[in-house]
C-alpha cells in the first residue's frame, strides 16, 4: 500500500493540479422579503457546502449525483460563472476566487463550459458562425477572413460541415447542436472544459457519438474535463476519477475503478444498484432509495444522507457530519455489493479513495450483516 509510486497512473490525485478548489461554498439567498433581510432572517439554499476538488492536466474528473444535489452549481462556481460564497479556487498557480474584470475575462480563455441543453445554450437568433466566432473575437484570437476559416475548421473538427456555418440553431438536431456547443468551447483553446451534463438531453446513439468526440478532442488538444452527469454509466466511460455528490457535499471520491468496483458510501452503492441495465436476466430494480432528497433549504443535521440511508445506524449519523476519510486501513471497509472480493493490495489508487460515512470506522462484519445490499 505504498503511495509513493513514480509512474503516472490514472486515478491518482495530481500533485500539481490544473484546478484546485478547497472548501468551496455556494449559497443562494432564498426568496426572503425586504423585511426579513433587514432583520437578518435570510434563508440560504446551501447548494454547494464545502467541497474540495482537484483536476489535473489532461485528466477527466466525473461528478455525479441526482438532480438538485448541487453538481451543476459546483461546475458553474468552479468556472466562476457563479461567485463562490466561501472557499478558494486556484487555477494553475493563480487564486481565481475573487477575480473580476479583465482577469476574469482571461480566465474564460482557459476555462470553458459546455451546457446541458444544446438548444437553450445557443442563442436562437444567431447563426452558427456568429456563435462560434464570438469567442475568437472577444479574446482577439482571429478576425476577418482568418476568423471565417477558423470557424469552419472548428465545425469540421467537431464533425459538422463548413456549410453549416450560416444556419441557425433550430435547423440542427440535438446532437449537432451539442457539437456546436463543443466547437464554441474549443474556439479559445482552453485548458479545462467543464461539461455540465453534455449528453443527458441526447439520444443514446448520439450520446455515444458525443462521448467519443470529447475523448478524441481530449487526446488531441490535451484538455482536462470536469464531466458532470447524473448517469454513472456515462461517467465510467470517460472519467479517470469520480466524485459522488449528495445535497451539496461530496460523499465519496476516488479513482473510477475504485468507485465502480469497490463503492463504500451507502449512497454510491444504492445509486449503482438503481441503474437500469440492458444486461443479465430480466427483473425489477430494487428500490433502495426511497423518496426524494431533502430540500437544501433545510438540510438534515449530521450526515446529509441519513434520512434516506438504507444503512442508517442511529444517532451518530444525525449528530455528526462525517468527513471524507481514506479507505486505506479503514476497519469498516466493505466488499463490493455483489460480494465478489476484489484484490486491492498494492493498488496505490486506493489511497486516493475517500468516503464520508461513519460506517468506515465501524466493523466491516457488523456492517455487512446490516447491509441490505450484500444480501443477495
Amino acid at each position, binding site marked *: 500500500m505504498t503511495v509513493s509510486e513514480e509512474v503516472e497512473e490514472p486515478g491518482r490525485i495530481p500533485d500539481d493540479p490544473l484546478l484546485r478548489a478547497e472548501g468551496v461554498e455556494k449559497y443562494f439567498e432564498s426568496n426572503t422579503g425586504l423585511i426579513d433581510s433587514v432583520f437578518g432572517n435570510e434563508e440560504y439554499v446551501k447548494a454547494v457546502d464545502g467541497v474540495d476538488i482537484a483536476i489535473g492536466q489532461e485528466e477527466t474528473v466525473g461528478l455525479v449525483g441526482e438532480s438538485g444535489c448541487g453538481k451543476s452549481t459546483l461546475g458553474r462556481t468552479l468556472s466562476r460563472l457563479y461567485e463562490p460564497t466561501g472557499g478558494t479556487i486556484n487555477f494553475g498557480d493563480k487564486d481565481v476566487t475573487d477575480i473580476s474584470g479583465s482577469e476574469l475575462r482571461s480566465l474564460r480563455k482557459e476555462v470553458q463550459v459546455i451546457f446541458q441543453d444544446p438548444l437553450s445554450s445557443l442563442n*436562437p437568433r444567431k447563426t452558427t458562425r456568429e456563435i462560434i466566432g464570438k469567442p475568437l473575437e472577444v479574446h482577439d484570437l482571429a478576425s476577418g477572413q482568418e476568423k471565417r476559416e477558423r470557424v469552419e475548421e472548428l465545425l469540421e473538427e467537431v464533425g459538422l460541415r463548413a456549410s453549416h456555418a450560416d444556419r441557425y440553431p*433550430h435547423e440542427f438536431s440535438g446532437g449537432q447542436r451539442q457539437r456546436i456547443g463543443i466547437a464554441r468551447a474549443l474556439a479559445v483553446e482552453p485548458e479545462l472544459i467543464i461539461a455540465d451534463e453534455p449528453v443527458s438531453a441526447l439520444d443514446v446513439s448520439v450520446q455515444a457519438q458525443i462521448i467519443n468526440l470529447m475523448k478524441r478532442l481530449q487526446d488531441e488538444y490535451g484538455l482536462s474535463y470536469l464531466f458532470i452527469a447524473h448517469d454513472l454509466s456515462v461517467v465510467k466511460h470517460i472519467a479517470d476519477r469520480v466524485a459522488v455528490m449528495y445535497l451539496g457535499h461530496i460523499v465519496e471520491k476516488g479513482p473510477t475503478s475504485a468507485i465502480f468496483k469497490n463503492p463504500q458510501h451507502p449512497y454510491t452503492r444504492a445509486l449503482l444498484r438503481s441503474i437500469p441495465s440492458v444486461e443479465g436476466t430480466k427483473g425489477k430494480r430494487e428500490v433502495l432509495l426511497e423518496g426524494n432528497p431533502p430540500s437544501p433549504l433545510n438540510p438534515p443535521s449530521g450526515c446529509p444522507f441519513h434520512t434516506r440511508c438504507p444503512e442508517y445506524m442511529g444517532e451518530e449519523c444525525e449528530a455528526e457530519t462525517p468527513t471524507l476519510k481514506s479507505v486505506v486501513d479503514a476497519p469498516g471497509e466493505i466488499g463490493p455489493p455483489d460480494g465478489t472480493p476484489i484484490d486491492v493490495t498494492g493498488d496505490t489508487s486506493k489511497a486516493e479513495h475517500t468516503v464520508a460515512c461513519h460506517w468506515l470506522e465501524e466493523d466491516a462484519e457488523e456492517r455487512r450483516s446490516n447491509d441490505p445490499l450484500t444480501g443477495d
Partner: protein
Amino acid sequence: MSTSLSDIVKTDRARIFGIRTDLIEQFVDTLQQDLKAKVGLVIVSVFILAAIFAPELTPYDPMAQEYGVFQPPTLSGAHPLGTDSYGRDILSRVMYGARISLAVGLGAVLFGGFFGVLIGLLSGYYGGWIDDVLMRAVDVMWAFPWLLIAIMLVAIFGQGFWNVIFAVGFAYIDDFARITRGEVLSVREEEYILAAENVGLSDFEIIFEETFPNTVAPIIVQFTVLVARAMLAESTLSFLGLGVKPTTPTWGAMLGQGRTFLTQAPWISIIPGILIMITVLGINLFGDALRDAFDVKEGDEA
C-alpha cells in the same frame, strides 16, 4: 381532462415533428389566414397613406374658411364630408388631422419605448437593488393617472407638438419597462446568456447583443397597441384643449370643437369620432395579429 390533453399536443407538436417555425413565416402565415389581420392591415395602410399624402390628396386647404358653414356631408357634392362651423372642408381637415395623430402616436410610443425598454433591460438583467430602484420609480409613474401627468406637463411647458408627444409618451414608459423586464427575466434564465458570460462577453454586450434581440417580439406587439392608445390620448388632450395648437386640425380637437354644434351639425363631431374609432380598431386588430404571430415559441427540438 380531454381538453388539457389536446392542449399538450398543441404545445408539443412543433417539438415532436421539428416543424420549422420562423417568426416571419409565422407572421406571413397569420396574415394570410387571419381575416382580422387583413382588415387591420388595410385600415392601417389607408390611414398611413392618407396622412403621408394629405397635401397631394386633399381637395381644399384645411385652414381656409371660405366654403359656407354647416354644409352637411353629401357624397356627391363638393364637400363629401361637409364643412364645419367656420366653413372649413372636413375631409381635408381629417386628412391633415391624420398626420398629427400618426406623428403623436408614433412619437409618443417611440419616446416611451426607448426609456421603458432601457429601464426594463437594466432592471431585469441586473436585478437586486437596481431593479428595486428602477421599478419603484416606474411604480410611482404608474400610480399617477396619465392624464394628470399630461395636464401637469402641458401646464408647465405649454401647448405644442413636442410637449404633447412628451406628455403622452411619458405615461408609456412604465408599460414598456414592465413588459421588457418580464421578458428579460425569462430570457436571463436561458442558458445562452450564461454561455455568453462563459465566452467572456461584457454585461453591455450581453444585454444588447444577446438579451435584447430575444425580447423584441412582445415589445413590438406592445408598440402597435400603444400607438392606438397614444392616438386616443392625443385626441383626449386636444378635446380638452391641451393638445397641439388649437387651430391645427387634429381629430380630437375637431371632435371637441364640434360638440357645441352637436344638435345642428352632428357630423362635425361624429366624423372624426368614427375615424378615431376605426383607426384604433384597425391598429388593435393588427396588433392582435402580431401577437398571435409571435405567440408560438420558435424552433423547438427536431
